[in-house]
């Protein structure tokens, strides 16, 4: 008698709790994507009339058939891949140390990891421009200690973009890895040592496989953020090295070719979804046993 109404009320509470978020997402995410999709099917006439009232697939065709655009897509994917790998390599030791610390030390290191997120992307990127330019701090230092004779060009190069993006996105990787590493029962390491395993064997046979959920979620996060990053490639890379995000900006805002910009956005979204879902299905097959 009393149980039924109470359950009903709880169901309602749950609905109410997810409602604002759902409405928000429907309006501004699904809704916006839908309009983007409609726009991508519009014709476009350069100069004169701009966006037309016609429905066509020409924008998609324009992108797929032009090696210039495809090269930008390839470059963006490669950039995101390198950034992800860089974050993994730099982030793993950091996350491992973080997961081992307790109390105040952990709080301090955690804060240090998060600090880069406290500055705006623009300011941070200007910082990198100062550091990476030919007369910048990095090159001046390397030359003054005699490691190099002439500056290594990093500004307006992919190298510079990748270095700057790794710094920006490292916190996301570290936090994802830290969560996974914290989940591992410490006695498992003791057991492995007790069974005769050295540090290398423990790392490859125990730590790494058990950190896989964190590696996957961190990589997805970093890859997605890297490929859609705008400020860093725009400022560090400049117009010479367009990536997908800057290309979309150029089409949409500079050239006012909204239909092509919309089409490129959606192509990028589809490519990203395909890559990530392939990655996730591989990873989840590997993790199914472990979880």
């Amino acid at each position, binding site marked *: 008698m009393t149980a039924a109404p109470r359950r009903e009320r709880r169901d309602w509470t749950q609905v109410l709790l997810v409602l604002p978020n759902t409405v928000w997402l429907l309006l501004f995410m699904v809704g916006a994507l839908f309009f983007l999709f409609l726009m991508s099917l519009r014709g476009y006439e350069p100069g004169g009339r701009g966006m037309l009232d016609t429905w066509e697939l020409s924008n998609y065709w324009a992108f797929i058939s032009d090696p210039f655009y495809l090269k930008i897509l390839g470059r963006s994917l490669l950039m995101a891949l390198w950034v992800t790998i860089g974050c993994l390599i730099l982030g793993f030791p950091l996350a491992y140390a973080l997961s081992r610390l307790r109390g105040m030390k952990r709080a301090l290191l955690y804060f240090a990891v998060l600090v880069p997120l406290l500055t705006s992307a623009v300011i941070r990127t200007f910082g990198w421009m100062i550091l990476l330019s030919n007369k910048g701090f990095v090159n001046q230092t390397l030359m003054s200690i005699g490691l190099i004779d002439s500056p290594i060009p990093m500004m307006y190069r992919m190298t510079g973009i990748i270095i700057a993006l790794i710094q920006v996105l490292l916190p996301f990787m570290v936090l994802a890895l830290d969560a996974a590493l914290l989940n591992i029962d410490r006695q*498992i390491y*003791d057991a*492995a*040592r*007790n069974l*005769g*395993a050295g540090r290398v*064997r423990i790392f490859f046979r125990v730590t790494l496989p058990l950190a896989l959920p964190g590696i996957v979620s961190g990589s997805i996060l970093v890859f997605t953020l890297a490929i859609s990053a705008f400020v860093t490639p725009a400022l560090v890379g400049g117009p010479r090295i367009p990536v997908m995000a800057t290309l979309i900006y150029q089409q949409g805002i500079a050239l006012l070719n909204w239909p092509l910009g919309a089409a490129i956005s959606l192509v990028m979204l589809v490519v990203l979804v395909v890559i990530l879902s392939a990655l996730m299905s591989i990873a989840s097959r590997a993790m199914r046993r*472990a*979880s």
Partner: protein
Amino acid sequence: MSTLKLQSLGKVFGNTAAVEKIDLEVGEGEMVAFLGPSGCGKTTTLRMVAGFVEPSSGSILVGGKDITRLPPNRRNMGMVFQSYALFPHMNVSENVAFGLKARHVPKGEIAGRITAALELVGLSGYEARYPKELSGGQQQRVALARVLALRPQLLLFDEPLSNLDAKLRVQMRHEIRTLQQEVGITSLFVTHDQEEAMTIADRIVVMNKGRIEQVGPPAEIYDNPRTRFVADFIGAANLVEGRLEGDVFQSARGARLDCAPPDFAPTGAPVVLSIRPEKIEILPGAGEGGTPGTVMRATKLGGLIEYVVELASGDTILVQKQDRSPADHLRVGEPVRVSWNTNDARLLP
């Protein structure tokens, strides 16, 4: 299979001494239980033997060889943990194989050793299961098979049964004991459950505040506790404070109680009389023989009845009787007499 010798082993964390000057010899094939309250240093001692904690002082000898500075992966010891500590991403057979591979056991030998170890713990046929597909008891058996497959010199158990429910715990401790005797591996077993220690061990080491209070076979620890701490910690005991007046014990409240002659030189300092509740005879009525008192409380505990008796002096004594028939029950407020065999009442310094 080896002897173990701990020589004034100690560990200081910061400025707290977790373990102080432990001396202990464990014979070949012996099972020794470490028993004591929480925080008394049992785990620290065991982890020093395993090599996870570096001793601050003293040394550890296995089979006469000093291994104090050897890293844990170079010691041939099998440790079984409270949380089982199985590798969740490996199935049963891979879990057992892990140590064999780490120790470079020849490839051709590995499969046979896995089979033999799983057979030993009664888990043949579970090779392909993952830890999460096993019950707690089965997981602990895998952990046991994992170390047995390595034929270690020592087995180390740190509260291996604490995560199991009461019934399984009793069953598993018998299995562990049987298995340990079968393979004859020298073992240390840390527990804070005295019943577990009593049933599983050849000898018990009672620890308190980082020190050994008493070492001996279970029966001796129970029947002949050497210190107040042991008498109080193991089983239930009546501990009456008082002093020796010549050969007679006189409680602080003035009761003169029978006791065995002290096995230490009396110094005139306060002593404690210790007697187990089940060793006390209780007779109804205020007649001859025994110390008179009054029943203050009667509690039925399964097959036992427990009486709290207040003596004329005001001292209270706990008495346990087999509950044979309701006709024997004593009522609260009834006058009674209590008495005991003088040898069962021991004096402790």
